[in-house]
C-alpha cells in the first residue's frame, strides 16, 4: 500500500528510529571492545574509539586498541573450536536422518505412519527441562560426560524431529508420479530415495542445515549441563562464564561476544533467506 508523501517521510523516520533502537546494543558492543580498560570506565560506551579521525572535528575520543580482542580469543579460542566441531557434526547428522525420515513418512504408505509423524511432531515442542535429569544421567552412564560426543548425540537427537518435519513437508510436494514411475521401472525404496529425492533436496538441506546450525551454535542449556569442562565446553558457556567472572573488563566480554557471534552473523548475512524459511516452518522449536 502506498502512502502520500509527507506520511512516507514520517514512515521512514519511524523505521530508522527503530533501527537505532535495534542497533544500539551492537554498536556499544563494538565500540567497547576496542577500548582500553581505563577508557571503558571513563568514556561513554557509544562514543567510538577513533582518536585521530574525530580530532579533526575538534572532538575528544579514546584511541582504539585490539588488545581485548586478543585476550578474548585466548579465552574463547578452544571453546569456539569445540562449538564448531559439534555444531557441524550434529547439523549434518540430524539433516541426513531427517531427510530419510521425511522420505519414509511422505512417500511410503504403511500402517502407523501418521502415528509416527505425530510422535515426531510432539517431540518438537517438549520443554528441555523435562528431559534434563535423564539426559545428564544417561550421558554420565555412557561415560560421555564432558565430551563432544555427548553434545553431538544430544543435539542430533533433539534435532531429528524438526528436521523430519521440514523434509517431510518438502517431499510431500514432490509429485507422486515421479516416484511411481521409478517404481514401475523396478527401482527399490532406497534407490528411489538416492536417485530421485536426494538430487532434488538441495533446498531443504540448506534450509534445515542453516536452521540446525543456528540453533545448535546458539545453544546454552545443553552445554551448561553436559560440558562444563574445557575439553568440550561450547563457546556459549565460555562467554557466560566470562561475564560471571570479570565484571571489570567489559571490553574483553564484548570482544568475546563478537568472536562468538561472528560465524553466525556471516551465515545470517549470506544465507538469511533460508534461515527465514526455517523459522517459518519450525516455528515452535526452542
Amino acid at each position, binding site marked *: 500500500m502506498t502512502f502520500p508523501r509527507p506520511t512516507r517521510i514520517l514512515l521512514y523516520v519511524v523505521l530508522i528510529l527503530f533501527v537505532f533502537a535495534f542497533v544500539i546494543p551492537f554498536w556499544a558492543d563494538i565500540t567497547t571492545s576496542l577500548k582500553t580498560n581505563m577508557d*571503558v570506565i571513563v568514556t561513554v560506551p557509544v562514543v567510538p574509539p577513533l582518536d585521530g579521525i574525530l580530532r579533526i572535528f575538534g572532538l575528544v575520543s579514546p584511541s582504539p586498541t585490539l588488545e581485548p580482542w586478543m585476550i578474548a580469543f585466548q579465552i574463547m579460542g578452544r571453546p569456539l573450536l569445540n562449538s564448531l566441531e559439534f555444531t557441524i557434526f550434529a547439523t549434518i547428522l540430524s539433516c541426513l536422518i531427517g531427510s530419510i525420515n521425511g522420505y519414509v513418512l511422505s512417500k511410503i504408505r504403511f500402517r502407523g505412519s501418521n502415528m509416527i509423524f505425530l510422535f515426531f511432531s510432539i517431540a518438537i515442542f*517438549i520443554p528441555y527441562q523435562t528431559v534434563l535429569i535423564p539426559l545428564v544421567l544417561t550421558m554420565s552412564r555412557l561415560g560421555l560426560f564432558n565430551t563432544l560426543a555427548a553434545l553431538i548425540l544430544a543435539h542430533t537427537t533433539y534435532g531429528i524431529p524438526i528436521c523430519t518435519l521440514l523434509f517431510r513437508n518438502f517431499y510431500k510436494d514432490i509429485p507422486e508420479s515421479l516416484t511411481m514411475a521409478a517404481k514401475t521401472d523396478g527401482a527399490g525404496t532406497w534407490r528411489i530415495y538416492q536417485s530421485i529425492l536426494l538430487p532434488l533436496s538441495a533446498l531443504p538441506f540448506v534450509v534445515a542445515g542453516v536452521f540446525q546450525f543456528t540453533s545448535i551454535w546458539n545453544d546454552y542449556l545443553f552445554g551448561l549441563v553436559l560440558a562444563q569442562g574445557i575439553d568440550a565446553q561450547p563457546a556459549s558457556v565460555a562467554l557466560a562464564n566470562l561475564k560471571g567472572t570479570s565484571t571489570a573488563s567489559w571490553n574483553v*566480554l564484548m570482544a568475546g561476544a563478537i568472536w562468538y557471534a561472528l560465524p553466525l552473523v556471516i551465515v545470517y*548475512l549470506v544465507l538469511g533467506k533460508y534461515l527465514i524459511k526455517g523459522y517459518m516452518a519450525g516455528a515452535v522449536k526452542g
Partner: protein
Amino acid sequence: MLPSIALVGYFVYASIGYNVLVSFTDWNQLRPSYNIVGFTHYAEMARDSVFSVSFLNNLLLILLFVPSSIGLGLILALLLDSKVRGEGVFRTIYLLPFSLSFAITGSLWAWMYDPTSGVINTLLRSAGLGFLATGWVTDSNMALYCVVLALVWQFSGYTMLLFLAGIRSIPESQVMAAEVDGASRFRLYGRIIIPQLKSSTLATFVILMVFALKAFDFIYILTGGGPGYSTFVLPLDMYRETFGMDQYAYGAAIATILFIVVMVIVVPYLYMSSRRREV
C-alpha cells in the same frame, strides 16, 4: 528410520516418563534413590515460597512479554508492508537479535544496564537526564521489567516476520477492492488486514507463550534470577533445585509441572492447526 525412532523414543518419551517417575521418589542427593514418596514434592510446592515467587514471575513475564512482542511485531510488519524501499535491509536488521545466542544478547544487555558505566546510564547522564539513571537489573523492583524489555527487543523481529508472512498471504484483490471503494487507511487495516491475521496471531501467541514458560538461558545469564529472587522463573527454580542443591526429585516435579502446562497449550494448538490443514 528405526534407529532415529529409538533415539527420539529414548531421549524424549522414555526420558519424560523417567522424569515423572523421579518426581515421585525421594532422590535428594547426588546418588539416585528410588523410594516412592507419592505426591510429596507436589505438595511441597504449595509451601515453597521460592516456587510461588517463580511462578508469579513467570506469569508476569508472560503477561508483559507476549502482548508487547506481538504489538511491536505487528507494528513493524504493518510499517514494512507499506512498499518500503530497502525493506530487506530493515528486515535483516530487525531480525538480527533473534538469530543470536542468548549468551550474546545476555552479555549485550548486561552492558546496557550496568549501573556505573553501562550504556543506558551514561547516555542519560550525558543527555542531562542523570536523574533517570537507576540500578536497572540490580534494582529488584525493576529487574523483571528490564528482562522483558530486552526479550521484546530480541523477539519482535521474529513476530514481525510471522505477521509479514500473514499479511502477504492476504489476496491483493481484497486490498485493491477496498481501496477502490474509498476505504480509509485505518479502515483498511481495521476491517480487512488485521481480522485476517487471526491465525498468524494465534501461532505467534502460542510460540511466545511456550518460550516464556521455558525461558532459561537469557535470564540465567543476565541476572541469574536476582537480585534476590526478583527474576526467578520456573526453569531457573528447576535448575537450582536440581543441579545447585541436588534436590533431583523436587526439580523433576517442577519440570513435570512445566511439561504439563506447555502441553496444555501446545496440544490443542497442534490439533487445531492439523484439522485446519485437512479441511
